[in-house]
């Protein structure tokens, strides 16, 4: 079979499906028909896409935490607690062994956790629990639940959780590979995710709308907007081709409010445009802001500032939902209380901002223009490299550096782009790698960086990038050099 951007043949899918369901014993219990029936029995309030639409109608930005613990009972308690504390949408974050399909290690971690009565896994091992265990989650909460993970190959995870009644599934062949793997070729992950999208499409054909979400933040660390937006659009196109009908594009807060708002707007506008242009006209498209995804301050009071601060961009960018960080981000997996604190903090901020659209439209539009041109020029090249096929274009683009992600562990990318903040904290390119950015815009980046160079009286260097990586965790947006004699 050739890997390309064509809707799969059902037979091909069914054959692969057999294999997939056999990779772990819980696969046997997956039954598509029963799964679909179960979904049909779900009240509207438990359906992700319905709640997203309701939020849009009411002009309410929905809040979703991250949360997942290995012991089922505790996981359910956790989710119930969060739904009583301002969560509109629930997550189930999957542990890292499961993400890498290491179900045996996940089982060991789960057994040890049960034995020691404490969490030794960093998430919920859904595959090990199988359909029955997972469904207990859905049964015990009253709002929708999404699977959040980071797996290049989530085929079995998707089969099990969707059959169990989860109504949203995060990830994509790019966004859950490049930041989450070292040596999984894109050819593989794209194929695996076509499988997942096809599965979601299959549900859709049977009247069940499952939301699919792309993981916008990538490495969470100074990712220039054009990169995550371009990749989000590609994943939307790929999903749509396999029959997905509800799709969310995501964006990790950068920190400069103008740039973030501009990015959110461009992301929505262009994703819509590309979807329509390529013939996918019935997709329900939504947008997501992730609170700052890079290194957090350890101090909770400072972390709260980072959280509230991030909420502003989400509000001004009119996203559909915000995925909240917690005051314990720098420390470790948050307690349920910390998670609830973050939700309440975010809700308070949003409700104080009600109706306040005070951002300078002109400044936003200027930035929008830049980002829009960048994205278009990247996507044009991807499309032409793929000779009209987005899947092929994606693979060729990453190997040519036309698509690239800073700080990513994957060895299948160039890894040459290097971001840096300008003097207002916006994320610019210190090194463009092979990204096809128009010369004029390259010069714009250089000028912006030059302002900072002049202000800080030091040349651009990797040290400056390092300072930016640490900056927020040390109390500021821009990694300013230490000044002698100043505290």
């Amino acid at each position, binding site marked *: 079979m050739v890997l390309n951007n064509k809707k799969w043949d059902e037979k091909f899918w069914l054959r692969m499906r057999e294999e997939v369901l056999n990779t772990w014993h819980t696969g046997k219990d997956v039954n598509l028909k029963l799964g679909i029936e179960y979904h049909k029995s779900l009240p509207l309030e438990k359906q992700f896409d319905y709640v997203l639409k309701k939020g849009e109608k009411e002009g309410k930005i929905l809040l979703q935490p991250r949360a997942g613990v290995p012991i089922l009972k505790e996981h359910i308690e956790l989710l119930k607690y969060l739904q009583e504390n301002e969560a509109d949408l629930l997550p189930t974050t999957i*542990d*890292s*062994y499961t*993400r*890498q399909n*290491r179900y045996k*290690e996940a089982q*060991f*971690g789960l057994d*040890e956790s049960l034995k020691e009565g404490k*969490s*030794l*896994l*960093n998430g919920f091992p859904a595959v090990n629990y199988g359909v029955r265990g997972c469904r207990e989650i859905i049964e015990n909460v009253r709002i929708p639940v999404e699977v959040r993970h*980071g797996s290049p190959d989530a085929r079995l995870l998707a089969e099990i959780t969707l059959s169990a009644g989860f109504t949203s599934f995060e990830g994509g062949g790019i966004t859950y590979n490049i*930041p*989450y*793997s*070292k*040596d999984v070729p894109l050819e593989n992950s794209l194929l695996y995710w076509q499988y997942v999208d096809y599965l979601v499409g299959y549900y859709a054909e049977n009247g069940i709308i499952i939301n699919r979400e792309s993981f916008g933040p990538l*490495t969470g*660390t100074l990712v220039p907007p054009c990169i995550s937006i371009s990749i989000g659009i590609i994943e939307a196109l790929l999903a749509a081709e396999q029959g997905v009908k509800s799709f969310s594009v995501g964006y990790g807060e950068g920190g400069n409010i103008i740039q973030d708002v501009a990015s959110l707007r461009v992301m929505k506008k262009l994703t819509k445009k590309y979807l329509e242009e390529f013939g996918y006209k019935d997709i329900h498209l939504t947008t997501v802001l992730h609170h700052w995804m*890079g*290194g957090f301050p*350890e101090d909770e009071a400072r972390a709260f500032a980072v959280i509230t601060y991030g909420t502003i961009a989400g509000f001004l960018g009119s996203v559909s939902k915000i995925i909240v960080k917690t005051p*314990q981000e*720098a*420390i*470790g*997996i*948050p*307690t349920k209380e*910390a998670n609830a604190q973050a939700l309440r903090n975010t809700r308070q901020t949003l409700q104080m901002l009600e109706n306040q659209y005070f951002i300078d439209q002109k400044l936003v539009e200027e930035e929008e223009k830049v980002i829009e041109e960048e994205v278009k020029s990247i996507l044009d090249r991807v499309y032409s490299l793929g000779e009209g096929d987005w899947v092929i274009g994606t693979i060729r683009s990453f190997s040519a550096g036309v698509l690239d992600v800073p*700080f*990513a*562990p994957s*060895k299948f990318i160039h890894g040459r782009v290097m971001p840096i903040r300008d003097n207002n904290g916006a994320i610019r390119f210190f090194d463009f790698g092979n990204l096809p950015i128009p010369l004029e815009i390259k010069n714009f980046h250089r000028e912006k960086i030059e302002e900072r160079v002049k202000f800080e009286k030091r040349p651009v260097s*990797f040290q400056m990038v*390092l300072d930016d*990586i640490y900056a927020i*965790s040390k109390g500021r947006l821009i990694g300013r050099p230490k000044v002698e004699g100043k505290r």
Partner: protein
Amino acid sequence: MGEKTIVLGVIGSDVHAVGLRVLDYALRSAGFDVVNIGVLSSQEDFIKAALETGARAILVSSLYGHAELDCQGFKEKLIEAGLGDILLYIGGNLGVGKKSWEEVEKRFKELGFHRVYPPKTMPDEVIKDLKEDLNIG
């Protein structure tokens, strides 16, 4: 290889790559010969790299919370491989969730690590310790 060779990597199913990048840069700038085996490295990867390069220290990074599981039996394997004396550091976010640091440190010292670093350790600190422990000027 020489006096200043150290192996650096992220253990287990952990993909946190940013700290590694920073440490790599800082250690090189401080004059060390860094053998960076990257993220998602197994105990065997660390041992192989140390044997091949004659490294004097292994720096294990773990952010994602499974460090305890991932490091079980590591010391034993090192001894088996004749690396019982190699300097062994670990750092990152070592527990799952918010735990007392003393508890975490104790646990990893029991697992055979000579030094254990809390989150947000600055590279300067480990460079100083390395120089001291390796008797480098």
